[in-house]
Protein backbone atom coordinates (compact mmCIF):
# COMPACT_ATOMS: atom_id res chain seq x y z
CA UNK A 1 0.00 0.00 0.00
CA UNK A 2 1.51 3.30 -1.07
CA UNK A 3 0.60 6.80 -0.03
CA UNK A 4 -2.93 7.83 -0.95
CA UNK A 5 -3.20 9.34 -4.39
CA UNK A 6 0.02 7.78 -5.70
CA UNK A 7 -0.67 6.81 -9.29
CA UNK A 8 2.80 5.37 -9.95
CA UNK A 9 2.35 3.01 -7.00
CA UNK A 10 -1.02 1.98 -8.42
CA UNK A 11 0.64 1.19 -11.76
CA UNK A 12 3.35 -0.84 -10.02
CA UNK A 13 0.75 -2.83 -8.12
CA UNK A 14 -0.65 -3.76 -11.50
CA UNK A 15 2.72 -5.08 -12.62
CA UNK A 16 3.99 -2.03 -14.47
CA UNK A 17 7.70 -1.27 -14.71
CA UNK A 18 9.22 1.82 -16.25
CA UNK A 19 11.61 0.94 -19.07
CA UNK A 20 12.81 -2.51 -20.06
CA UNK A 21 14.83 -4.47 -17.50
CA UNK A 22 18.49 -4.37 -18.46
CA UNK A 23 21.82 -5.56 -17.17
CA UNK A 24 24.36 -2.84 -16.42
CA UNK A 25 26.77 -2.11 -19.24
CA UNK A 26 25.19 -4.39 -21.82
CA UNK A 27 23.83 -1.73 -24.09
CA UNK A 28 25.61 0.70 -26.33
CA UNK A 29 25.51 4.37 -25.62
CA UNK A 30 22.70 6.21 -27.31
CA UNK A 31 23.29 9.89 -27.71
CA UNK A 32 21.20 12.45 -25.92
CA UNK A 33 21.48 14.65 -28.92
CA UNK A 34 19.41 17.76 -28.52
CA UNK A 35 19.43 21.20 -27.01
CA UNK A 36 16.95 22.34 -24.43
CA UNK A 37 17.15 25.44 -22.34
CA UNK A 38 15.16 27.30 -19.74
CA UNK A 39 15.70 30.71 -18.20
CA UNK A 40 13.76 33.09 -16.05
CA UNK A 41 12.55 36.32 -17.61
CA UNK A 42 10.40 39.14 -16.29
CA UNK A 43 7.04 37.34 -16.17
CA UNK A 44 8.10 33.75 -15.50
CA UNK A 45 10.19 31.13 -17.24
CA UNK A 46 10.86 30.50 -20.90
CA UNK A 47 11.57 26.92 -21.97
CA UNK A 48 12.75 26.07 -25.45
CA UNK A 49 13.91 23.05 -27.36
CA UNK A 50 15.06 22.33 -30.89
CA UNK A 51 13.08 19.83 -32.92
CA UNK A 52 15.65 17.39 -34.26
CA UNK A 53 15.73 13.72 -33.27
CA UNK A 54 18.84 11.79 -34.28
CA UNK A 55 20.05 8.20 -34.24
CA UNK A 56 23.84 8.15 -34.64
CA UNK A 57 24.53 10.49 -37.52
CA UNK A 58 21.09 10.05 -39.03
CA UNK A 59 18.41 12.68 -38.67
CA UNK A 60 15.35 10.68 -37.76
CA UNK A 61 12.79 13.38 -37.45
CA UNK A 62 12.71 17.15 -37.68
CA UNK A 63 9.47 17.94 -35.94
CA UNK A 64 9.99 16.47 -32.49
CA UNK A 65 8.41 18.23 -29.55
CA UNK A 66 10.81 18.03 -26.62
CA UNK A 67 9.09 20.60 -24.45
CA UNK A 68 6.13 18.77 -23.02
CA UNK A 69 3.31 20.21 -20.99
CA UNK A 70 2.57 18.10 -17.92
CA UNK A 71 -0.19 20.20 -16.45
CA UNK A 72 -1.43 23.80 -16.53
CA UNK A 73 1.63 25.02 -14.60
CA UNK A 74 4.48 22.64 -15.33
CA UNK A 75 6.53 21.62 -18.29
CA UNK A 76 9.27 19.06 -18.75
CA UNK A 77 11.88 19.57 -21.44
CA UNK A 78 13.62 16.34 -22.32
CA UNK A 79 17.06 15.37 -23.53
CA UNK A 80 17.93 11.71 -23.83
CA UNK A 81 16.22 8.60 -25.06
CA UNK A 82 12.83 9.75 -26.33
CA UNK A 83 10.97 6.48 -25.68
CA UNK A 84 11.74 6.63 -21.95
CA UNK A 85 11.29 10.38 -21.76
CA UNK A 86 7.83 10.32 -23.35
CA UNK A 87 6.83 7.47 -21.08
CA UNK A 88 7.98 9.46 -18.05
CA UNK A 89 5.96 12.44 -19.15
CA UNK A 90 2.91 10.23 -19.54
CA UNK A 91 3.38 8.80 -16.05
CA UNK A 92 3.87 12.27 -14.56
CA UNK A 93 0.87 13.69 -16.35
CA UNK A 94 -1.38 10.96 -15.01
CA UNK A 95 0.23 11.07 -11.55
CA UNK A 96 -0.46 14.77 -11.08
CA UNK A 97 -4.01 14.46 -12.38
CA UNK A 98 -4.69 11.41 -10.25
CA UNK A 99 -3.35 13.12 -7.15
CA UNK A 100 -5.43 16.23 -7.76
CA UNK A 101 -8.61 14.30 -8.44
CA UNK A 102 -8.32 11.83 -5.56
CA UNK A 103 -6.96 14.17 -2.90
CA UNK A 104 -9.02 17.17 -4.06
CA UNK A 105 -6.00 19.45 -3.97
CA UNK A 106 -3.13 20.22 -6.28
CA UNK A 107 0.13 18.32 -5.72
CA UNK A 108 2.63 20.79 -4.25
CA UNK A 109 5.52 21.96 -6.39
CA UNK A 110 7.99 20.06 -4.21
CA UNK A 111 5.83 16.98 -4.55
CA UNK A 112 6.04 17.29 -8.32
CA UNK A 113 9.83 17.57 -8.17
CA UNK A 114 10.02 14.45 -6.03
CA UNK A 115 7.86 12.58 -8.52
CA UNK A 116 10.35 13.37 -11.29
CA UNK A 117 13.29 12.25 -9.12
CA UNK A 118 11.55 9.01 -8.24
CA UNK A 119 10.96 8.13 -11.89
CA UNK A 120 14.57 8.86 -12.77
CA UNK A 121 15.75 6.73 -9.85
CA UNK A 122 13.61 3.82 -11.02
CA UNK A 123 15.12 4.28 -14.43
CA UNK A 124 18.76 4.03 -13.27
CA UNK A 125 19.41 0.47 -14.57
CA UNK A 126 18.24 1.41 -18.06
CA UNK A 127 20.17 4.68 -17.88
CA UNK A 128 23.41 2.91 -16.93
CA UNK A 129 22.90 0.29 -19.60
CA UNK A 130 22.78 3.13 -22.06
CA UNK A 131 19.33 2.39 -23.40
CA UNK A 132 17.22 4.72 -21.33
CA UNK A 133 19.12 7.73 -20.07
CA UNK A 134 16.97 10.80 -19.70
CA UNK A 135 18.26 14.19 -18.56
CA UNK A 136 15.26 16.45 -18.14
CA UNK A 137 14.73 20.05 -17.18
CA UNK A 138 11.60 20.55 -15.11
CA UNK A 139 10.02 23.96 -15.07
CA UNK A 140 6.96 25.17 -13.31
CA UNK A 141 5.18 27.94 -11.56
CA UNK A 142 4.97 27.43 -7.81
CA UNK A 143 1.55 28.89 -7.05
CA UNK A 144 2.06 28.76 -3.28
CA UNK A 145 5.24 30.80 -3.39
CA UNK A 146 4.20 32.82 -6.39
CA UNK A 147 7.41 32.27 -8.33
CA UNK A 148 8.60 30.39 -11.38
CA UNK A 149 11.23 27.71 -10.84
CA UNK A 150 13.71 25.73 -12.90
CA UNK A 151 15.19 22.38 -11.93
CA UNK A 152 17.56 20.13 -13.82
CA UNK A 153 18.47 16.53 -13.13
CA UNK A 154 21.28 14.10 -13.73
CA UNK A 155 20.47 10.62 -15.05
CA UNK A 156 20.43 9.19 -11.53
CA UNK A 157 17.66 11.47 -10.35
CA UNK A 158 19.52 14.10 -8.34
CA UNK A 159 17.73 17.42 -8.62
CA UNK A 160 19.45 20.80 -8.84
CA UNK A 161 17.82 24.16 -8.88
CA UNK A 162 18.76 26.36 -11.80
CA UNK A 163 18.46 29.73 -10.13
CA UNK A 164 18.63 31.73 -13.36
CA UNK A 165 18.81 29.19 -16.13
CA UNK A 166 19.38 25.52 -16.99
CA UNK A 167 20.40 23.65 -20.13
CA UNK A 168 20.62 20.05 -21.22
CA UNK A 169 21.51 17.96 -24.27
CA UNK A 170 24.49 17.71 -26.58
CA UNK A 171 24.25 21.32 -27.73
CA UNK A 172 24.12 22.65 -24.19
CA UNK A 173 27.88 23.24 -23.56
CA UNK A 174 27.85 25.84 -26.33
CA UNK A 175 25.02 27.88 -24.92
CA UNK A 176 25.76 27.40 -21.26
CA UNK A 177 28.70 29.73 -21.63
CA UNK A 178 26.63 32.24 -23.58
CA UNK A 179 23.92 32.22 -20.93
CA UNK A 180 26.48 32.84 -18.22
CA UNK A 181 28.00 35.69 -20.18
CA UNK A 182 24.64 37.28 -21.00
CA UNK A 183 23.39 37.02 -17.47
CA UNK A 184 26.54 38.42 -15.89
CA UNK A 185 27.76 41.05 -18.35
CA UNK A 186 24.83 41.55 -20.68
CA UNK A 187 22.97 44.87 -20.85
CA UNK A 188 20.52 43.49 -18.35
CA UNK A 189 20.23 40.22 -16.45
CA UNK A 190 18.08 37.54 -18.06
CA UNK A 191 15.44 37.97 -15.38
CA UNK A 192 14.80 41.53 -16.55
CA UNK A 193 14.07 40.58 -20.19
CA UNK A 194 10.64 41.28 -21.60
CA UNK A 195 8.68 38.44 -23.18
CA UNK A 196 9.76 39.46 -26.68
CA UNK A 197 13.42 39.92 -25.73
CA UNK A 198 13.36 36.52 -24.04
CA UNK A 199 12.02 34.86 -27.19
CA UNK A 200 14.67 36.54 -29.34
CA UNK A 201 17.42 35.34 -26.97
CA UNK A 202 16.03 31.81 -27.04
CA UNK A 203 16.05 31.77 -30.86
CA UNK A 204 19.62 33.11 -30.93
CA UNK A 205 20.79 30.57 -28.36
CA UNK A 206 19.30 27.63 -30.23
CA UNK A 207 20.71 28.91 -33.50
CA UNK A 208 24.16 29.07 -31.84
CA UNK A 209 23.77 25.54 -30.51
CA UNK A 210 22.83 24.30 -33.98
CA UNK A 211 25.89 26.04 -35.39
CA UNK A 212 28.28 23.89 -33.35
CA UNK A 213 26.27 20.74 -32.66
CA UNK A 214 25.20 18.63 -35.62
CA UNK A 215 22.57 16.90 -33.52
CA UNK A 216 20.72 20.11 -32.81
CA UNK A 217 18.33 21.38 -35.43
CA UNK A 218 18.14 25.14 -35.60
CA UNK A 219 15.57 27.11 -37.53
CA UNK A 220 14.66 25.88 -40.98
CA UNK A 221 12.96 28.77 -42.69
CA UNK A 222 12.33 26.95 -45.97
CA UNK A 223 10.29 24.35 -44.14
CA UNK A 224 8.91 26.98 -41.71
CA UNK A 225 10.33 24.98 -38.86
CA UNK A 226 10.83 26.88 -35.65
CA UNK A 227 11.89 25.65 -32.22
CA UNK A 228 9.27 24.90 -29.60
CA UNK A 229 9.10 27.77 -27.12
CA UNK A 230 6.80 27.79 -24.11
CA UNK A 231 6.26 30.50 -21.54
CA UNK A 232 5.23 29.65 -18.00
CA UNK A 233 3.76 32.36 -15.83
CA UNK A 234 1.14 32.63 -13.12
CA UNK A 235 -1.51 32.34 -15.85
CA UNK A 236 -0.21 28.90 -16.87
CA UNK A 237 1.69 27.42 -19.78
CA UNK A 238 1.51 29.19 -23.10
CA UNK A 239 2.96 27.86 -26.35
CA UNK A 240 4.40 30.52 -28.65
CA UNK A 241 2.99 30.06 -32.16
CA UNK A 242 5.33 29.95 -35.17
CA UNK A 243 3.62 33.06 -36.50
CA UNK A 244 5.11 35.01 -33.58
CA UNK A 245 8.56 33.48 -33.91
CA UNK A 246 8.90 34.02 -37.65
CA UNK A 247 9.05 37.85 -37.66
CA UNK A 248 11.28 37.87 -34.57
CA UNK A 249 13.67 35.45 -36.22
CA UNK A 250 13.74 37.39 -39.47
CA UNK A 251 14.21 40.80 -37.90
CA UNK A 252 16.44 40.07 -34.93
CA UNK A 253 18.22 36.76 -35.40
CA UNK A 254 19.26 36.50 -39.05
CA UNK A 255 22.51 38.30 -39.87
CA UNK A 256 23.79 38.40 -43.41
CA UNK A 257 27.56 38.44 -43.15
Amino acid at each position, binding site marked *: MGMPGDFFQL*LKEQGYTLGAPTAVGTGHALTNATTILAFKYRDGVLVAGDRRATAGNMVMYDRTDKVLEI*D*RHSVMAIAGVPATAYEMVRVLEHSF*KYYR*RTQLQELSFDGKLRAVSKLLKDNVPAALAGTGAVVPVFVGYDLEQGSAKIYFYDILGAEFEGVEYAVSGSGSPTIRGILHYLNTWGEQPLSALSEEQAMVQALRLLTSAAEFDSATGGVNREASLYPVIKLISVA*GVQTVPDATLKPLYESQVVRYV
Partner: protein
Amino acid sequence: MYEEPYRWVEAVGNRRQYLDEQFKQGSPVVALTYDGGILLTTVSKGTPKLYEIYDRLALGGMGHPTDLEKLRFSLLEMAHVEGFNRSPSDVTGSRLVKYGIAPVIKQAFEEVYKAPFIVRILVAELGQKPEKDALLTINYDGTFEETTGRAVLAATQTVQAKMVAYLKEQQPAALSLEQALDLSLRAWAIGSLAHQQDEADQQAEAKPLASSAGSSAAAIPSRDVLIAHVRGLVGERMIECAVLERQAPGTSKYRPLKQADLVRLLPTALHSVVAH
Protein backbone atom coordinates in the same frame (compact mmCIF):
# COMPACT_ATOMS: atom_id res chain seq x y z
CA MET B 1 -31.65 -18.74 6.41
CA TYR B 2 -31.47 -17.18 2.95
CA GLU B 3 -31.05 -20.49 1.19
CA GLU B 4 -34.75 -20.65 0.46
CA PRO B 5 -35.58 -18.54 -2.59
CA TYR B 6 -38.58 -16.96 -0.92
CA ARG B 7 -36.53 -15.77 2.01
CA TRP B 8 -34.02 -14.25 -0.33
CA VAL B 9 -36.62 -12.33 -2.30
CA GLU B 10 -38.07 -11.12 0.95
CA ALA B 11 -34.66 -10.03 2.21
CA VAL B 12 -33.97 -8.09 -0.98
CA GLY B 13 -37.37 -6.45 -0.65
CA ASN B 14 -36.60 -5.40 2.92
CA ARG B 15 -33.31 -4.05 1.73
CA ARG B 16 -35.05 -1.84 -0.83
CA GLN B 17 -37.26 -0.44 1.86
CA TYR B 18 -34.30 0.19 4.10
CA LEU B 19 -32.33 1.88 1.32
CA ASP B 20 -35.24 4.03 0.14
CA GLU B 21 -35.49 5.28 3.68
CA GLN B 22 -31.82 6.36 3.64
CA PHE B 23 -32.20 8.83 0.78
CA LYS B 24 -35.06 10.81 2.26
CA GLN B 25 -32.82 13.44 3.78
CA GLY B 26 -30.58 13.53 0.71
CA SER B 27 -30.17 16.48 -1.58
CA PRO B 28 -31.16 15.95 -5.22
CA VAL B 29 -28.56 16.36 -7.97
CA VAL B 30 -29.31 17.92 -11.36
CA ALA B 31 -27.24 17.50 -14.53
CA LEU B 32 -28.15 19.66 -17.50
CA THR B 33 -26.48 20.29 -20.83
CA TYR B 34 -26.02 23.91 -21.87
CA ASP B 35 -24.51 25.55 -24.95
CA GLY B 36 -20.94 25.19 -23.64
CA GLY B 37 -21.03 21.78 -21.97
CA ILE B 38 -22.67 20.13 -18.98
CA LEU B 39 -23.65 21.71 -15.66
CA LEU B 40 -24.00 19.74 -12.42
CA THR B 41 -25.87 21.32 -9.54
CA THR B 42 -26.79 20.39 -6.00
CA VAL B 43 -27.26 22.09 -2.65
CA SER B 44 -25.05 20.25 -0.20
CA LYS B 45 -25.04 20.18 3.55
CA GLY B 46 -21.39 19.78 4.34
CA THR B 47 -19.63 17.10 2.37
CA PRO B 48 -19.23 17.90 -1.31
CA LYS B 49 -21.26 15.77 -3.70
CA LEU B 50 -19.73 16.71 -7.06
CA TYR B 51 -16.35 15.44 -8.18
CA GLU B 52 -13.94 15.26 -11.09
CA ILE B 53 -13.29 11.73 -12.35
CA TYR B 54 -11.32 12.14 -15.53
CA ASP B 55 -10.57 14.61 -18.31
CA ARG B 56 -14.16 14.69 -19.52
CA LEU B 57 -15.98 12.90 -16.71
CA ALA B 58 -17.73 14.23 -13.65
CA LEU B 59 -19.51 12.52 -10.78
CA GLY B 60 -22.51 13.52 -8.72
CA GLY B 61 -23.82 11.45 -5.85
CA MET B 62 -26.47 11.01 -3.19
CA GLY B 63 -26.24 8.85 -0.14
CA HIS B 64 -23.63 7.85 2.39
CA PRO B 65 -20.40 9.86 2.06
CA THR B 66 -18.13 6.88 2.80
CA ASP B 67 -19.81 4.67 0.21
CA LEU B 68 -19.67 7.46 -2.33
CA GLU B 69 -15.99 7.95 -1.55
CA LYS B 70 -15.28 4.24 -2.06
CA LEU B 71 -16.95 4.19 -5.46
CA ARG B 72 -15.36 7.48 -6.43
CA PHE B 73 -11.96 5.94 -5.79
CA SER B 74 -12.67 2.87 -7.87
CA LEU B 75 -13.89 5.08 -10.71
CA LEU B 76 -10.75 7.22 -10.47
CA GLU B 77 -8.51 4.20 -10.38
CA MET B 78 -10.14 2.51 -13.36
CA ALA B 79 -10.24 5.72 -15.38
CA HIS B 80 -6.59 6.63 -14.81
CA VAL B 81 -5.17 3.17 -15.35
CA GLU B 82 -7.18 2.82 -18.55
CA GLY B 83 -6.26 6.32 -19.69
CA PHE B 84 -2.59 5.57 -19.13
CA ASN B 85 -2.52 2.06 -20.60
CA ARG B 86 -4.69 2.80 -23.60
CA SER B 87 -5.53 6.44 -24.18
CA PRO B 88 -7.66 9.15 -22.59
CA SER B 89 -10.21 8.84 -25.37
CA ASP B 90 -10.83 5.21 -24.38
CA VAL B 91 -12.01 6.27 -20.95
CA THR B 92 -15.76 6.54 -21.43
CA GLY B 93 -18.50 6.93 -18.88
CA SER B 94 -20.49 4.08 -20.28
CA ARG B 95 -17.59 1.61 -20.01
CA LEU B 96 -16.78 2.68 -16.45
CA VAL B 97 -20.39 2.35 -15.40
CA LYS B 98 -21.46 -0.79 -17.26
CA TYR B 99 -18.34 -2.89 -16.73
CA GLY B 100 -16.86 -1.06 -13.77
CA ILE B 101 -19.00 0.00 -10.86
CA ALA B 102 -22.57 -1.07 -11.73
CA PRO B 103 -21.73 -4.79 -11.30
CA VAL B 104 -19.99 -4.04 -7.99
CA ILE B 105 -23.01 -2.13 -6.70
CA LYS B 106 -25.38 -4.87 -7.84
CA GLN B 107 -23.36 -7.56 -6.15
CA ALA B 108 -23.20 -5.66 -2.87
CA PHE B 109 -26.94 -5.11 -3.07
CA GLU B 110 -27.77 -8.78 -3.59
CA GLU B 111 -25.41 -10.23 -1.02
CA VAL B 112 -27.98 -9.84 1.68
CA TYR B 113 -25.66 -10.78 4.51
CA LYS B 114 -23.32 -7.89 3.66
CA ALA B 115 -23.84 -4.15 3.68
CA PRO B 116 -25.06 -2.58 0.42
CA PHE B 117 -23.75 0.70 -0.96
CA ILE B 118 -26.06 3.49 0.12
CA VAL B 119 -25.60 5.55 -3.03
CA ARG B 120 -27.19 6.83 -6.15
CA ILE B 121 -24.65 7.97 -8.68
CA LEU B 122 -24.66 10.21 -11.72
CA VAL B 123 -21.80 10.17 -14.20
CA ALA B 124 -21.67 13.00 -16.72
CA GLU B 125 -19.56 12.64 -19.81
CA LEU B 126 -18.58 15.49 -22.09
CA GLY B 127 -18.37 14.13 -25.63
CA GLN B 128 -16.01 15.40 -28.29
CA LYS B 129 -19.12 16.79 -29.94
CA PRO B 130 -22.27 17.99 -28.15
CA GLU B 131 -24.32 15.11 -29.56
CA LYS B 132 -21.93 12.68 -27.88
CA ASP B 133 -22.60 14.04 -24.38
CA ALA B 134 -23.91 11.32 -22.10
CA LEU B 135 -25.48 11.24 -18.66
CA LEU B 136 -25.58 7.98 -16.75
CA THR B 137 -27.37 7.28 -13.52
CA ILE B 138 -26.92 4.22 -11.33
CA ASN B 139 -29.32 3.18 -8.62
CA TYR B 140 -28.33 1.45 -5.37
CA ASP B 141 -29.26 -1.94 -6.87
CA GLY B 142 -26.92 -1.53 -9.83
CA THR B 143 -29.49 -0.67 -12.48
CA PHE B 144 -28.22 2.06 -14.75
CA GLU B 145 -29.73 4.33 -17.33
CA GLU B 146 -28.11 6.38 -20.04
CA THR B 147 -29.73 9.58 -21.20
CA THR B 148 -28.84 12.82 -22.90
CA GLY B 149 -29.79 16.41 -22.20
CA ARG B 150 -30.78 16.07 -18.57
CA ALA B 151 -30.60 13.64 -15.69
CA VAL B 152 -31.35 13.83 -11.98
CA LEU B 153 -30.85 11.98 -8.74
CA ALA B 154 -33.55 12.14 -6.08
CA ALA B 155 -34.93 10.14 -3.17
CA THR B 156 -37.61 8.26 -5.13
CA GLN B 157 -38.43 7.40 -8.72
CA THR B 158 -41.54 9.58 -8.53
CA VAL B 159 -39.57 12.63 -7.48
CA GLN B 160 -37.01 11.95 -10.18
CA ALA B 161 -39.75 11.76 -12.79
CA LYS B 162 -41.23 15.02 -11.51
CA MET B 163 -37.90 16.81 -11.78
CA VAL B 164 -37.17 15.47 -15.25
CA ALA B 165 -40.65 16.44 -16.43
CA TYR B 166 -40.07 19.97 -15.11
CA LEU B 167 -36.70 20.22 -16.83
CA LYS B 168 -38.15 19.00 -20.12
CA GLU B 169 -41.02 21.41 -19.97
CA GLN B 170 -38.94 24.46 -19.08
CA GLN B 171 -35.96 23.84 -21.33
CA PRO B 172 -35.85 25.83 -24.54
CA ALA B 173 -33.63 24.67 -27.41
CA ALA B 174 -30.27 25.68 -25.97
CA LEU B 175 -29.42 27.26 -22.63
CA SER B 176 -26.65 29.61 -21.65
CA LEU B 177 -24.77 28.67 -18.48
CA GLU B 178 -26.70 31.32 -16.58
CA GLN B 179 -30.06 30.00 -17.76
CA ALA B 180 -29.00 26.42 -17.09
CA LEU B 181 -28.04 27.28 -13.51
CA ASP B 182 -31.33 29.04 -12.93
CA LEU B 183 -33.30 26.10 -14.32
CA SER B 184 -31.21 23.52 -12.44
CA LEU B 185 -31.83 25.25 -9.13
CA ARG B 186 -35.55 25.38 -9.82
CA ALA B 187 -35.58 21.68 -10.69
CA TRP B 188 -33.60 21.04 -7.52
CA ALA B 189 -36.27 22.94 -5.57
CA ILE B 190 -38.99 20.81 -7.21
CA GLY B 191 -37.16 17.74 -5.94
CA SER B 192 -36.51 19.15 -2.50
CA LEU B 193 -40.13 20.27 -2.09
CA ALA B 194 -41.33 16.85 -3.23
CA HIS B 195 -39.10 15.21 -0.60
CA GLN B 196 -40.66 17.43 2.06
CA GLN B 197 -44.14 16.68 0.74
CA ASP B 198 -43.51 12.93 0.81
CA GLU B 199 -42.47 13.14 4.41
CA ALA B 200 -45.45 15.26 5.34
CA ASP B 201 -47.77 12.81 3.57
CA GLN B 202 -46.28 9.93 5.48
CA GLN B 203 -46.80 11.69 8.77
CA ALA B 204 -50.36 12.45 7.75
CA GLU B 205 -50.93 8.78 7.07
CA ALA B 206 -49.59 7.95 10.50
CA LYS B 207 -52.08 10.37 12.03
CA PRO B 208 -55.36 9.63 10.20
CA LEU B 209 -57.13 12.53 11.97
CA ALA B 210 -55.34 15.17 9.92
CA SER B 211 -57.00 14.37 6.60
CA SER B 212 -55.35 16.98 4.45
CA ALA B 213 -54.29 14.46 1.81
CA GLY B 214 -54.37 15.28 -1.89
CA SER B 215 -52.04 18.21 -1.50
CA SER B 216 -49.31 16.12 -3.11
CA ALA B 217 -51.10 16.46 -6.43
CA ALA B 218 -50.74 20.25 -6.29
CA ALA B 219 -49.83 22.26 -9.36
CA ILE B 220 -46.22 23.00 -10.26
CA PRO B 221 -45.01 25.87 -8.08
CA SER B 222 -44.13 29.14 -9.75
CA ARG B 223 -40.60 30.29 -10.43
CA ASP B 224 -40.61 32.67 -7.46
CA VAL B 225 -41.74 29.97 -5.06
CA LEU B 226 -38.97 27.65 -6.22
CA ILE B 227 -36.23 30.26 -5.98
CA ALA B 228 -37.55 31.31 -2.57
CA HIS B 229 -37.30 27.69 -1.45
CA VAL B 230 -33.63 27.55 -2.46
CA ARG B 231 -33.08 30.90 -0.80
CA GLY B 232 -34.59 29.62 2.42
CA LEU B 233 -32.23 26.66 2.56
CA VAL B 234 -28.98 28.21 1.43
CA GLY B 235 -28.25 29.71 4.85
CA GLU B 236 -27.40 26.33 6.34
CA ARG B 237 -26.50 24.61 3.06
CA MET B 238 -24.31 25.55 0.15
CA ILE B 239 -25.01 25.74 -3.58
CA GLU B 240 -22.50 23.43 -5.22
CA CYS B 241 -21.95 23.58 -8.97
CA ALA B 242 -19.45 22.19 -11.42
CA VAL B 243 -19.15 22.33 -15.19
CA LEU B 244 -17.59 20.22 -17.88
CA GLU B 245 -16.63 22.92 -20.37
CA ARG B 246 -16.06 22.00 -23.98
CA GLN B 247 -13.88 25.07 -24.65
CA ALA B 248 -11.73 24.82 -21.50
CA PRO B 249 -8.00 25.01 -22.22
CA GLY B 250 -5.94 21.84 -21.71
CA THR B 251 -7.20 18.31 -21.37
CA SER B 252 -9.11 18.56 -18.07
CA LYS B 253 -12.54 19.96 -18.78
CA TYR B 254 -13.93 19.84 -15.24
CA ARG B 255 -14.20 23.04 -13.24
CA PRO B 256 -16.01 23.61 -9.97
CA LEU B 257 -17.79 26.96 -9.93
CA LYS B 258 -16.31 29.22 -7.27
CA GLN B 259 -18.18 31.77 -5.25
CA ALA B 260 -17.20 34.56 -7.63
CA ASP B 261 -18.62 32.57 -10.57
CA LEU B 262 -21.82 31.91 -8.67
CA VAL B 263 -22.32 35.57 -7.82
CA ARG B 264 -21.99 36.36 -11.50
CA LEU B 265 -24.26 33.57 -12.71
CA LEU B 266 -26.97 33.13 -10.10
CA PRO B 267 -30.42 34.67 -10.45
CA THR B 268 -30.47 38.07 -8.71
CA ALA B 269 -32.82 36.82 -6.00
CA LEU B 270 -30.03 34.55 -4.77
CA HIS B 271 -27.11 36.98 -4.92
CA SER B 272 -27.37 38.08 -1.33
CA VAL B 273 -27.18 34.54 0.09
CA VAL B 274 -23.96 33.65 -1.71
CA ALA B 275 -22.10 36.91 -1.38
CA HIS B 276 -21.49 37.04 2.32
